């Protein structure tokens, strides 16, 4: 995978198994986000392939990509919450696009909010919440569909250390429930305290 600027990924081979927790570390611009984009098929590799469950990026039709993404949960450092609707509707949104019944939407949304400890804030608007709370909502939205894997792109980059640890604990809990987690971060300190698998990339290549 290479951008017109010449930057990109080179001969990356990475496999994340079901239920695994993997840190993808590297400095800014190393290509961490590109790895995640390849997985959620926002971009396609120029050579090689990406397989998500049974969907291969080389063979997949464009119309199938939304269905691949329903097997994934994605969170970002800027949360990407919709500021025109409340917390409940932000989380429920991921279910509504899958044509879930209102009963199912309510049940799963309340469960996801409970998992991230935000049930009491369900009728608040995103702007009324702190950064940590907003990221919890983003996690709730990412897990509400029971994804196979949670892709987290620098989820703690905008948060203070204490809140970052709280977010990591939530991701741990999600992982313990059987969801694989692939978390991109440049925060080596955070990774050092963990006993998870670490994949380090630099200048588009895996260095260990």
């Amino acid at each position, binding site marked *: 995978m290479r951008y017109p600027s010449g930057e990109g990924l080179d001969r990356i081979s990475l496999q994340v198994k079901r239920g695994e927790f993997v840190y993808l570390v590297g400095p800014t611009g190393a290509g961490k986000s590109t790895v995640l984009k390849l997985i959620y098929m926002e971009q396609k590799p120029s050579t090689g392939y990406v397989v998500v469950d049974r969907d291969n990026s080389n063979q997949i039709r464009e*119309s199938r990509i939304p269905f691949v*993404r329903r097997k994934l949960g994605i969170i970002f450092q800027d949360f*990407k919450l*919709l500021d025109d609707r409340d917390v409940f509707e932000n989380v429920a949104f*991921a279910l*509504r*696009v899958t044509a879930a019944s209102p009963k199912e939407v309510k049940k799963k949304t309340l469960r996801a909010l409970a998992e991230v400890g935000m049930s009491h804030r369900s009728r608040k608007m995103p702007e009324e919440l702190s950064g940590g709370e907003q990221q919890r909502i983003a996690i709730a939205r990412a897990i509400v569909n029971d994804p196979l894997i949670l892709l987290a792109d620098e989820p703690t980059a905008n948060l203070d250390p204490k809140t970052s640890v709280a977010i990591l604990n939530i991701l741990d809990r999600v992982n313990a429930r059987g969801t694989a987690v692939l978390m991109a971060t440049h925060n080596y300190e955070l990774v050092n305290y963990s006993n998870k698998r670490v994949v380090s990339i630099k200048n588009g290549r895996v260095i260990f």
Partner: protein
Amino acid sequence: MIHSAFFLIKEGLEGFRRARLSAAVATVTVTISITLFGVFLIITLNLSRYIDMLKNRMEIEVFLDDSFSDEKIQGIREQLSTIEGVRDVVFISKEMAIRAFHRLFEREPADYIEALGFNPLPASFRLKLEPNYLTSGQADRVVQRILAMDAIGAEDIRYDRRILLIIEKNVELAIVLGVIVGAIICLSALFLVSNNIRLIIFSRRKLIETMKLVGATPLFIQAPLFIQGVTQGFSGGLIASGFLYVIVVLSSMRVRNLIVVNPEVYPLMIILGAGLGLLGSLTAVRRYL
């Protein structure tokens, strides 16, 4: 599926509410465009009604020599009736002609007859033509057939060919102008709706990006935009048809039957509005999404 449909309709209408100002501006501009289109359509339709009325008054007059016997006149009448394109043949006797002359100049028929000692006006046949023969070309063909009859000479036939020519020339121009103006109005309404949907797409970039990330299909992302486009167009069409109705009623209060509007024009305005809304949103979605 039904849950998705409800959600999409709600999202579409919510989007309308969220972008109140731009939606209102788009609806007002669509209303103005469709009202203009409607006014133009009504003028064109009524113009064509007046032209038809004018054409229907057109008749060919065949003057008869005073020496013709009743039998000969009857024979001519039968011959005229068989000519293709002739709808009606009316005989105007010398007496009827002088009475008509009197009505025109408000004098007693006896005045002229007394002054001259005889009735100078000839008897005639007035021929009405079938609607599709009311063109200069077809009328000429009918005249040629009449001239083929032995008893009638070229100087015995009168008809207002010039009016037909003027009408034909100007109707063509009016149709061309109508198509051009109508197309410009429709295109401007289309552009306005499309531009409004483009603005909505830009203002909802974040929402659209999130929809894509959580696995929304393209149709799911586009449907609320189509609903908004159609709602804008439909509302514009509805208000415009209301305006048109008021305009027609007000004009009829002054002069009865000045403007006659087929009632189907009103739902047509609404369908046109909704259609323009859908087409505008389709254009914007294809280009910007």
